[in-house]
């Protein structure tokens, strides 16, 4: 599936819920399925700056596709990073660089998009894209 198709699937899943509580509960559930980062990568260099909770992300290239793993000490943040990784992991660096993240708004998590929000969703997206740019340079 393309990034857009995955994002549409996520939007579909979230559209089943009528209130924020169900959406948050689902997000927390998604957090539990997050591909966890190997302990050896859970180091300060892999921390995303600008988050009130700690978020570690690691990326590696697997057959021209980028695979992400991550973890967070806060469960909501873990849910958010899980959603992003689900949309981006297994895609080519170029597609990740070009992808937009408007679907976050559509699943009713718009408040997390504000750059001042302490969980730093914006920083997370930026970090994932930075990895993509770095690996794209390698591929070139």
């Amino acid at each position, binding site marked *: 599936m393309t990034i857009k198709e995955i994002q549409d699937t996520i939007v579909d899943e979230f559209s089943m819920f009528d209130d924020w509580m169900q959406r948050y509960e689902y997000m927390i559930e998604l957090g539990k399925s997050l591909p966890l980062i190997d302990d050896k990568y859970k180091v300060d260099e892999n921390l995303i700056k600008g988050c009130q909770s700690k978020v570690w992300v690691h990326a590696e290239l697997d057959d021209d596709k980028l695979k992400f793993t991550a973890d967070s000490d806060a469960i909501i943040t873990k849910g958010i990073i899980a959603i992003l990784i689900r949309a981006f992991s297994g895609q080519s660096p170029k597609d990740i660089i070009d992808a937009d993240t408007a679907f976050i708004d559509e699943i009713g998590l718009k408040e997390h998009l504000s750059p001042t929000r*302490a969980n730093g969703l914006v920083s997370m997206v930026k970090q994932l894209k930075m990895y993509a740019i770095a690996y794209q340079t390698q591929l070139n």
Partner: protein
Amino acid sequence: MIDIKSIREDFPILNRKVNGYPLVYLDNAATSQTPKQVIKAITDYYTNYNANIHRGVHTLSQEATEKYEEARQKLQRHFNAAHPYEIIFTSGTTHGINLVANGFAALLQPGDELLVSAMEHHSNIVPWQMLCEKTGAVLKVIPMNEKGELEMEVYEQLLSDKTRIVFCNHISNALGTINPIEKIIKMAHDAGAAVLIDGAQAAPHIKADLQALDVDFYTVSAHKMCGPTGVGMLYGKESWLRKMPPYQGGGEMIAEVTFEKTTYADLPHKFEAGTPDICGGIAFGAAVDYMNGIGFDAIAAYEHELLDYATGRLLKEIEGVKIYGTAENKTSVISFNIEGIHPYDIGAILDKLGVAVRTGHHCAQPIMDYYKIPGTVRASFAFYNTREEVDRFIEAVQKAQMMLA
């Protein structure tokens, strides 16, 4: 006695809904809400007599000057300073601390010692660290115990003839501890050191008598005590203010300027370079009037009741809760965590339920390091909060725990 119904009518923002719920505002230690009396002072200024102060001969300028200086006198009376010119208008507590730290640069020698309490806000740590870098002075820390109280015996041992200045908050923003500043000041003076008290958190709860305290510097922010943001006060004893060089150069702070030599204006203008926040200063005065109208004894008693009620319910009804800051003498702040749950998660769910609290390190990372935690959830109560709001807060915490555990 607090007439809570009529008080709440003074605060238009309390009628707001947040995420579909009536707002429960429990982030008062970060900033207080603004009563319509203060809002009126602000609109009054811009509607009727907005003008630059001190030099204009026209009527508006004179009216604005009069009101601004009247606000200074209100602060003088409120804090019982000896003279109005000992009240310096600042942009807030941080500005006040930086002003003093800058002034002390000229008064320190390498090897001089500064004492800081372990429970300071970053704003009362960093300016002094910068001062130490500049002068070769040494920063020493007065430790605290598990309850969040300063270890006074260690403080006594740290004081020496090398100590130049001690700085400490009146009330800790992260823990709510009310520090024994009378004792701290007396002991510092006995050792020949000056004292700066960060009164930002105390000003909304306690009416400090600065002459009785005999404190050298005391600094507050208007926005913690029902005033606007961006304005505050530094009190300094006249002798210190005369000794310290100006902080910033510019208009307003001069007597005579030639390219060869400039002489400085007298107090308080020596420390008030440039056009100040005239409207903010006047509104600050209105805020102090408003709070005095309610009365600080009534405020303290009422807030204490809320604190006891909230603490009791939290401890009894929330499993795995731990409160940080359990000093005998504390104000209406509850800093807490729930076992196994990140404070950020609790704050995010509470926000969805219309309850505003603060999460994180509260600009006091050394305290978080002491307890070895990433941060806390902090609920801080003001005199316009109610028992019903405490109930909403407890229910919201229960709901958050259910969702997150």
